[in-house]
């Protein structure tokens, strides 16, 4: 019912300030939220514990028994040794020595228990909170939800940035539409390229006006939602080109010492870029570390990955703290699932039944373990955390009202998080 009508021509010049709220764009799926209320107007916003979020995404699924939930008494569970951390009673893997010194900033959730065991389905489930195509709805990713609910519609930079090797549909804005799609950065050391238009600024302005004028004919004749999507993307890109904030994408502006601290690799540079983007008011940044799908040579690969993860994640947390940003920034460490606690050959398989995530920053009570897996890491014995619980926890911290009803274009009411979530209240105690 709220489908935009492209027969109404957008006024001249309008698209230069296009991003100022309210420009209706069709979503990829054809669903549009009919509601206009923004979270900043709801009381949830006042209860927000964090203003921005970084998700460190271990793509492929990290093994809990090699990282944060070791089982030293069961030989089959892994070869890596536990080490003591800054917090008495909490041990983590010897592969994470730097992080062991700041475990007091982290809450380790050892009781994730989810249901999707295949990468693509699990990525969709863990990024959107819903199973792939559940109920025939194109569910938005959490980043898109945050962009819609807590993003500043006037911001020059997109609210949602994903630093990832691959674009796939689990990141998509779903029914929230193109306005809330992530900006993908595939190479963090290059950032975003082509930000400068050749020629003088007035030349660019003239060209853009010409483009805008010529767009009207096709939009009117063909009435395709792609016209609206195109306009949104171009409008956002132009706004970014014109903003001094775009330099946040350039990590080479950091000192060499700072880049060394994070690690001069894709993940380290990604974490550093994330910090720069948060300082430029980006709300949601995901940083991917790919390669955790260790079916075959688990131990060699995990050793290498942790060698990258440890400095990157530790530098991000301590750097945010030094800059006074950690208290209102949530940092989450996760994958799409865990890995089998016991070896099969030299590898570990996908495992959703019991695995581990980390919460840091946002004023959470650090230095604690939440939930418990059994002696062999195979099942959850205490405080199972479902995908809904997990999503609702993050929404709560970010001030996103996940109980609110969103009415889709066809009149169907949905919520951002599926039925009866139990947020992890233990994070604040």
């Amino acid at each position, binding site marked *: 019912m709220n489908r935009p009508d492209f027969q109404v021509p957008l006024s001249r010049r309008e698209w230069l300030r296009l991003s100022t709220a309210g420009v209706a764009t069709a979503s990829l799926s054809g669903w549009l939220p009919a509601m206009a209320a923004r979270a900043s107007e709801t009381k949830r916003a006042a209860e927000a514990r964090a203003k921005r979020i970084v998700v460190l995404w271990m793509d492929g699924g990290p093994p809990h028994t090699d990282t944060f939930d070791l089982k030293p008494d069961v030989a089959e569970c892994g070869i890596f040794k536990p080490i003591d951390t800054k917090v008495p009673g909490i041990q983590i893997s010897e592969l994470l020595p730097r992080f062991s010194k700041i475990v007091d900033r982290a809450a380790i959730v050892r009781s994730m228990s989810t249901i999707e065991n295949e990468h693509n389905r699990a990525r969709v489930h863990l990024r959107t909170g819903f199973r792939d195509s559940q109920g025939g709805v194109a569910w938005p990713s959490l980043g898109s939800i945050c962009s819609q609910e807590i993003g500043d519609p006037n911001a020059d930079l997109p609210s949602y940035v994903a630093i990832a090797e691959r674009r*796939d549909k689990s990141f998509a804005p779903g029914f929230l539409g193109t306005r809330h799609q992530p900006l993908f950065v595939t190479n963090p050391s290059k950032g975003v390229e082509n930000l400068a*238009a050749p020629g003088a600024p007035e*030349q660019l302005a003239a060209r853009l006006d010409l483009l805008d004028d010529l767009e009207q004919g096709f939009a009117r004749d063909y009435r395709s939602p792609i016209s609206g*999507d195109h306009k949104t993307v171009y409008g956002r*890109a132009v706004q970014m080109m014109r903003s001094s904030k775009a330099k946040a994408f350039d990590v080479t502006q950091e000192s060499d010492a700072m880049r060394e601290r994070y690690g001069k690799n894709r993940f380290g540079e990604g974490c550093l870029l994330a910090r720069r983007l948060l300082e430029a008011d980006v709300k949601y940044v995901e940083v991917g570390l790919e390669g955790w799908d260790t079916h075959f040579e688990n131990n060699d690969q995990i050793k290498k990955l942790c060698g990258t993860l440890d400095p990157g994640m530790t530098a991000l947390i301590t750097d945010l703290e030094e800059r006074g940003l950690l208290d209102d920034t949530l940092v989450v460490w996760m994958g799409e699932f865990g890995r089998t606690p016991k070896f099969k050959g030299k590898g*570990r*398989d996908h495992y959703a039944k019991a695995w581990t995530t980390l919460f840091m920053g946002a004023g959470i009570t650090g230095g604690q373990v939440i939930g418990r897996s059994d002696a062999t890491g195979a099942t959850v014995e205490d405080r199972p955390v479902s995908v809904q619980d997990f999503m609702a926890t993050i929404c709560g911290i970010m001030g996103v009202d996940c109980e609110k009803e969103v009415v889709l274009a066809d009149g169907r009411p949905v919520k951002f998080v599926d039925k009866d979530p139990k947020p992890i209240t233990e994070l604040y105690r």
Partner: protein
Amino acid sequence: MTGSRTAFVGSYRLGLMAWLVASSLSFGGANAAETSAVRKPPVGKQTTTKKPAAKKLSAAELARQIDVHVARSLDAKKIPTSPRSEDAEFMRRVYLDVTGTIPPLDRVEPFLNDSRSDKRARLIDELLGTEEYARHMTDQWREFLIPNTAASARRRHETGIQWLEAAFRTNRPYDEFVRGVLTADGMQRNNGATTFLLTHQSLDEATDRLSRVLLGVQITCAQCHDHPFADWKQDDYWGTAAFFSKVKHQYERIERVEHYGVSERGERKPMMVPPSHRVVPPTFLGGTRPQLDPDEPYLPVFVDWLSSAENPYFARAFANRLWRKLMGRGLVEPVDDLREANPGTHPELLALLGEQFRRNGFDVHYLIRAVALSETYQRTSRSLDANRADAEWYSHMPVKVLTPYMLGDSIQTVMLLGDTPAATPATAAPTKPATPPAAASGKPPAEPSADDQLKAAQRARSTRDQFASFFRGEENPAPTLYETGMPQALRLMNSQDMFRGSRVVGVLSQKNKQPEKVIEQIYLAALARRPTGDERRIVLGYVKSQPDATRAMTDVVWALLNGTEFVTNH
């Protein structure tokens, strides 16, 4: 080998019978009359093999049948159809769908001015014979068959790409094409067809991809547990995987260069076997187990089953994928989820397409020709108020989005006009097939004489590949999905490459003195149509308002290439 094949044929014909009845029942389930006709008890040998349209149809006849089936559902839903596309719309569409690029400028007006009544059919046939067709099909099948993983990206697959191009250039029948892919034996440098098995590191990777692509089924979830929604069981998965279990990766080092290959007879290491592996004897979907000679390769037997008349998936999976590419949406969606409980919108039509594809010798040109000749395909993308909401019954052609390769090639088609002042019909026009290589006889393509040749071919591809990988989004996206993000928009707006339009303007201005005429040529080059009155007025006004006419015309090229109309196929 022949012995082992005859051994299984007899047993599985009978064994499959009951299952086939069930399968055709549900695939044809939308038609009540047909369903009740089939709902006899499946006893005896000849009761059930009767399928709709047992007769072999020509492409034109099949096109009419397509229209009949589509009209039936539209009538039932009382959705009116949009009119037939105009010549310009049709021409650009069929060029993009068949050759992957927009028509070159010098081809546009001759077609628009052609008054022969069969000019659309002629154009379809002509385009199927071009080198661009082979390239475009190769782009698609590369994505289907070579996994986009770090492991596969570490190596170049030039011979595999050349093998695909040769297959499409010579219109190799699809069953033979698949036989080439699955039974490839030898080293990659000599036999590019080995590339596809070679780039799959593990048994599950090969099983997942090839079952999705070739059979159109998702049995992946059944790897670890019975599928949550579908009927697939773990034994379906591991029974299919078992056919790949003899594939071994070969390796040799000659003069410090590493070479790879595959064989079902070799001694080297088999593909990696995932931990969740269950040992199940090779089993066709549906449960029949062929008698196999343990000393012989398994995959030839699997291929025989794939392309046999009894296999309900193989031909339909291809037809459905092709339909999706041309019509914007699969008759069954997702295209890799053919199963009884997911019959799609037009189950009888899909059965018919698969059946006729098989009866016509798995002739890929035939199927493309049939779809493209149909009125269904030739309808305009302009919706009516009364059919605007329709996105699945084909009342009008959906607006599709150019894939990254199509976008890059289409930009190049325009920019090439500026490269040589003589307007170069030789490079811009579709090329006739090169001298048919050895592949025409069904043998692998001739071995490249030197590594240098391979490297030259790789370099030629690298610009295209680089552009495409920058624009690449999710794997196998819906044809209507607009995936351009801000980085891609920035590149289209600001990269130097997009300002080569000034040379195009230079060439066109030399040949046409009037600005109005230059503008018309720019429209024909970029959009394969003449500008409307409004557009002439806007563009002319713009050019006059700017101090530098060439620069202003360059802006016009820029604006057209950055517009929605250019990046879509409508």
